[in-house]
């Protein structure tokens, strides 16, 4: 598990994780995977309510399109685009 920035609410899986497995996240402690997490994908470090930001690199990378449980797999099935104000 790798958490890139202190403010992140997701971490990157450094190996494939099977649902129910307990994993160690440096700087956070033990976390139980709620879903299968593919290699290189994101796991929620905390519950993310629908509409709330998904944070990586300390910045918002998208909004939860549905409720994401702690330990859940975060990807396009539950994360939608954030409005871009360039």
């Amino acid at each position, binding site marked *: 598990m790798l958490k890139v920035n202190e403010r992140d609410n997701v971490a*990157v899986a450094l190996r494939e994780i099977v649902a129910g497995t307990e994993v160690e996240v440096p700087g956070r402690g033990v976390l139980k995977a709620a879903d299968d997490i593919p290699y290189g994908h994101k796991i929620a470090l905390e519950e993310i309510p629908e509409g709330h930001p998904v944070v*990586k690199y300390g910045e918002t990378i998208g909004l939860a399109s549905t409720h994401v449980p702690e330990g859940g797999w*975060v*990807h396009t099935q539950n994360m939608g685009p954030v409005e871009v104000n*360039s």
Partner: protein
Amino acid sequence: MSGFNGFERPDGTVGVRNHVVVIPSVACANGVAAEIVRQVPQAVPLYHGHGCSRAGRDLELHFRTLSNLARHPNVSAALVVGLGCEVIKAELLAGEVLRTGRRVEYIDIQAEGGSRRSAEKGAGIVRKLLADAAEESRTAVGIDRLIVGLECGGSDAFSGITANPAVGVLSDLVVADGGTVILTENTEMIGTSHVLERRAVSPEVAERIRDMVARAEKRTRDILGPLASMVIAPGNMDGGMSSIQEKSLGCITKGGGSPITQVVDYAEPPTGKGLVLMDAPGYDVESMAGVVAAGAQVVIFTTGRGNPIGFPIAPVIKVASTSKLFASMEDDMDVDAGTVLERGIDEVAREVLRLMMGILNGEPAKAEMNRQDGILCLYTTGPSF
């Protein structure tokens, strides 16, 4: 960081290679260029699909890119092969090369009386140019003469946390020593404009960044509609990237944390030093042509899914985001940045730096060993006529 040994050119630039190139002025001359290179394999071909039936912005882009590649610091001399009836005539391109004091010759297929006569004559010219190039030697120069181009292609979730942060540290070292780094791929800056604007050296540069990213976003929205901000190449999605913001933040870390001194157009050489942004698309092969045409003598290319491409006249250093990729495509990958997880970012950055210095001094990059020359893909904004 010590300097490097390069080929000093009459126009003040420094090459890290001493190529003799065969460049068609138009796609119709690719076949003759290919026959010349078959006869003289030491020559480097710059095949492309352009040179005619364009006007306005695209003609300007293509002419600037082809000219700047033919007179690139890594090029000792050029043979331009034209057809005769095209828009970008061989004589015009050769004239641009001549302005830098480089050796240049040109032939037109229609004037020479066809393919075979043109190829024979071209091969003879190229043999002479190669013999002259062999007499040229390297001299020691400082990092202030170096332009490093940055690219990423086939990114995965690790690109942004292993390879790109390590290259970011290297970028800061190059800039600190007076060198220049070009960060590009404007579609991969969408959603991160505010981060880049904060680092601009002046309000004018910040405004150019804002304009560039806004245009990239508008273009993406125009082409892709409501899906725009979610659309990333399928390979990236499979690798665990879930939005363009996520990919963009991971992408811009390659540039490090230096102030942004300038925004240049596609294939436009920077006028100053430091970290420079280029207004070029996210399509790696097109943006790489723009970065090299702007004068980058070397490209550092991070990849997560594994992209083997090189560039005909510039070494392209491949930094693999994972040890798994490095092991599975070892023939193509120069550095294993997957070791960031054990060794730390700074140590991997130092390895990339050591490797880059060796390559600047003449060691081949893996893409050069594999002759990953390919074909030039040039940024194009509209249809041909």
